[in-house]
C-alpha cells in the first residue's frame, strides 16, 4: 500500500500551482465574476496549451494519456484557484461521458477537439426544482430529434455541445431514458443566460425544439451511464472542493495572524483557534476520502460508487464549512464585495449543488453500503 501521490505527480502539482498563481490570481476570477463573459478565454487557451484538458484522454484521441491521478492533481489546483473556465463541464462530464459510452467514431470526433481546447462541452440533467429522477425527466429524444427544456446547465451559454438526459420511451423508469449529444449551435436550440449564485460559473436554460441530435450509448441506458459519469465527476470535483477548502483555511489563518482586537491577535483566541482546527479536521478527512476516490477512479475499482459518494459528501461538507467560517473569521470586511471571501462562499455552494445535492449522494452512499455489506 502506498497512499500518496508519486514524485512526478507532485511535480505536476507544483508546476500547476505556480502556473495558476501567475495566470489566475483572484483578479482573473473577479473579471469573470463581474463581467458578461462566461469564462476567461486567455486562461482557457493557456490551459489547453499546457495539455491539461487531455490529461486523462488517451493519446490515440489526442490527449496526454497520463491518467486519473494526474487529473485529480490538476483538479485540486483549479479548485484552489477557483479558476473561471469550463474545465469541469468539458472534462469531468462531457469527455468522461464520451469515454464511458461513446462509439469509436464519437471518440474520434469529440475527444481530440476537447484536448486541444477547441470544444467546450457540458451535461444537462435538471428540468426544474427538486430531485433529478427518471420520472422528473420529461425532455424526449426519439428518432434523432430532441425536445424539451433543461435548466441550470453549467457553462451552458459557452458550450459547443451538450449531452442531454432525455426520455426515449414510455417506460417511466430508468429504462425509459437515453442520452443525446446535441450541437448547441444547431437549429431548434435556444439558450437563455440564467442568474446564478456563482457568476464565475455561469448557467443557462436551454430549450430544444426538435433539434437534431445523436445518441450516446443505447436507448434505455441513459440513467445508468449518467450515474457512472456522475460518480467519476464527483471524485474529480471533490479534489476541486478540497483545494478550495484548503485555501479558505489559509485565508482565515493569515487574517487571524494579522488582525488585532482587544490588544491581541485574534488568532490567539480559542474561539478562532477551534474554528480553524475544525476547518483543518474537516478538510483532512475530505482529502483522505478524495484520495481513496482517486485510487478507485484510477483503477476502476469495484468500490468506485461508494468511494465517489463518500468523497462527494465529505468534500462538500468541508468546503461549505471552510468557506462560511472563513468569511466569519474575517468579520465585517469578509462580507464586502471587494474581499475574495464571497468567491469561495459562492463557489462552495455551487459545486455542492451542480452534481446533485448532498441529500441524494448520502442516500446513494448508504445504498452502496447496503450492497457491499461494508456498513
Amino acid at each position, binding site marked *: 500500500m502506498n497512499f500518496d*501521490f508519486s514524485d512526478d505527480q507532485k511535480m505536476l502539482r507544483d508546476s500547476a500551482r505556480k502556473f495558476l498563481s501567475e495566470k489566475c490570481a483572484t483578479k482573473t476570477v473577479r473579471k469573470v465574476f463581474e463581467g458578461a463573459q462566461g469564462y476567461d478565454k486567455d486562461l482557457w487557451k493557456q490551459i489547453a496549451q499546457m495539455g491539461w484538458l487531455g490529461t486523462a484522454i488517451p493519446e490515440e484521441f489526442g490527449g496526454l494519456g497520463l491518467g486519473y491521478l494526474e487529473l485529480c492533481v490538476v483538479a485540486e489546483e483549479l479548485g484552489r484557484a477557483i479558476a473561471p473556465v469550463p474545465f469541469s463541464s468539458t472534462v469531468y462530464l462531457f469527455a468522461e461521458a464520451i469515454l464511458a459510452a461513446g462509439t469509436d467514431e464519437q471518440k474520434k470526433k469529440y475527444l481530440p477537439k476537447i484536448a486541444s481546447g477547441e470544444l467546450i462541452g457540458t451535461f444537462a440533467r435538471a428540468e426544474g426544482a427538486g430531485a433529478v429522477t427518471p420520472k422528473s425527466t420529461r425532455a424526449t429524444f426519439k428518432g434523432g430529434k430532441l425536445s424539451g427544456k433543461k435548466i441550470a446547465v453549467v457553462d451552458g451559454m459557452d458550450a459547443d455541445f451538450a449531452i442531454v438526459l432525455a426520455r426515449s420511451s414510455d417506460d417511466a423508469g430508468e429504462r425509459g431514458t437515453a442520452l443525446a449529444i446535441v450541437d448547441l449551435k444547431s437549429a431548434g436550440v435556444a439558450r437563455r443566460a440564467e442568474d446564478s449564485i456563482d457568476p464565475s460559473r455561469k448557467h443557462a436554460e436551454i430549450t430544444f425544439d426538435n433539434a437534431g441530435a445523436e445518441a450516446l450509448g443505447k436507448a434505455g441506458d441513459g440513467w445508468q451511464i449518467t450515474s457512472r459519469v456522475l460518480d467519476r465527476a464527483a471524485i474529480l470535483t471533490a479534489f476541486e472542493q478540497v483545494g478550495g477548502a484548503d485555501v479558505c483555511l489559509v485565508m482565515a*489563518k493569515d487574517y487571524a495572524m494579522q488582525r488585532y482586537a482587544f490588544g491581541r491577535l485574534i488568532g490567539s483566541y*480559542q474561539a478562532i483557534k477551534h474554528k480553524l482546527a475544525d476547518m483543518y*479536521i474537516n478538510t*483532512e*478527512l*475530505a482529502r*483522505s476520502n478524495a484520495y481513496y476516490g482517486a485510487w478507485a477512479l*484510477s483503477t476502476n475499482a469495484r468500490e468506485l460508487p461508494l468511494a465517489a459518494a463518500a468523497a462527494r459528501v465529505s468534500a462538500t461538507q468541508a468546503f461549505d464549512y471552510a468557506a462560511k467560517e472563513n468569511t466569519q473569521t474575517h468579520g465585517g470586511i469578509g462580507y464586502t464585495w471587494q474581499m475574495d471571501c464571497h468567491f469561495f462562499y459562492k463557489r462552495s455552494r455551487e459545486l455542492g449543488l451542480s452534481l446533485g445535492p448532498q441529500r441524494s449522494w448520502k442516500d446513494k452512499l448508504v445504498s452502496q*453500503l447496503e450492497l457491499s455489506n461494508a456498513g
Partner: protein
Amino acid sequence: MDFEDTQDEAAFRAEANTWLSANARPRGAKSAKDDIEEMENGAAGEMAASKAWQKKKAQAGYARITWPKGMGGMGGTPMQSIIFNQEEAKYDVPVGAPFAIGLGMCIPTLMTYGDDAAKKRYIVPAVQGDEIWCQLFSEPAGGSDVAGLRTRAEKKGDEWVINGQKIWTTGAQFSDYGILLTRTDANVPKHKGLTMFYIDMHDPAVEVRPIKQASGGSGFNEVFFTDLKVKDSQRLGEVGQGWQVALTTLMHERLAVGGGQGGGLDVKELMGLARTLELEDGPALKNASVREKIADWYVRSAGLKYTTYRTMTALSQGKQPGPEASIAKIVVASKLQDISAFAMELEGEAGALKGEDAPAHGAFQMGWMSAPGLRIAGGTDEILRNIIAERVLGLPQDVRVDKDVPFNKMPSGR
C-alpha cells in the same frame, strides 16, 4: 498511489489470518459491548484473559511488530503493524487495554531515557503482558495544564523522597510499574522544575484508590505517595528535564496510530441495529433521516481510516508523524457519543434500558456512558484543538499569565 497490498503485504496478511483463525474466534454479537467494557474498566472481564491473549501474541511476535526481535517484537514494518491491527479487529479478542499505555508510552520512554540494565529488565516482560505499566502525570491541580503538577521529589543522599497525589491514572490498580512526573524545583517557572522517574507500584508508600466513573466502571484511579523512596538510577532524563521527557512520551502516544480507538461502535453497528428496527414509516434503515446520519458518520469514519493510511505511508517513507494525528481522538470520541445517542433514539423507549435488558446487549448505552470520558482522557477535545491550531496551523499561543513566573509564585486559586 496504490491501495492494494504489495505481494509481501498480502503474504503477511495471509500469515496473520492463519495465525488468528487458529487462535481466536470471529467477532460475535457481544464483541462491541465487550470492547467498550474493557476500555471502561481498563481490562477485559477478567485480567487473565487479557494477559493470556497478550502472551500468545508476544510469543508469535505480533504483540509489538515494529520492535526488534530482542525486545519482544518481530522487527517488522509499520505497515505490517497496521495490517495485523486490521485483521485482529475481525476477531473476538481483548483489545489489549491494560498494555496500551505501558507499550505505547512508558516503555518507549524507557527505551529513550533508561539505562541498559533497565531496558534489559523491563521491556520483554511488558511486551509479554507479565508486567503492566501506568503513566502518572495528571494531578488534581494539573489536568489539561499538566506542567502545573505539585507532587514533590526531594533529593536525600542517593535517593529521592516523593510526596503528593496523582489522579485519572488509567490502570494504576493493576499496574506493576509506572512512570512518574514530579516537581523537583519550585523556584523556577513550571516547565523547568520537573523530573521524571519510574517507580514500583507495589511499594507500600504507594496507595491506589480506584475512582468510580459516571459509567459505573473503574478504569481511573487516584494514586497517593507518602515518603516514597526512589533510587537516583530510576530517574529518566536529567533533573529539571522532565517536561522534555514527558513530551517524548506524548509523541509516542501519537505514533501509536491505527489502534482500535473508538470501541468498535461505528456505522457498521448502527446499520446492524437499523436493520432490525421498525419506525413509524417502516424499516429504520429505509428512513431518510437515518440514512442521512449514517452517511455523515461514514464519511468521518472512512476519512479517519484513510488519514491513518496516509500517516502510515508517511511513516514508511521515513517521515515523523506530527501533531496532526491529534485529529483522530477528536473525531472518534464525538462520533461515539453521537452514534450512541442516535441509536438509543432509534430504540425508542427501550433505549432507556441498559445491559441485557436493552437492545443489542446494551452496547449503545455503554458507548453513550463512556463517551464523555473518551472526550476528556488523554487530552480534552479543547486541548487537542489548541494543539492543532498552535502546532499544525501555527497560530499564537493564548496569553500565558504564568509564563516566566517561578512555580511557587504562581496564582493557583487556593
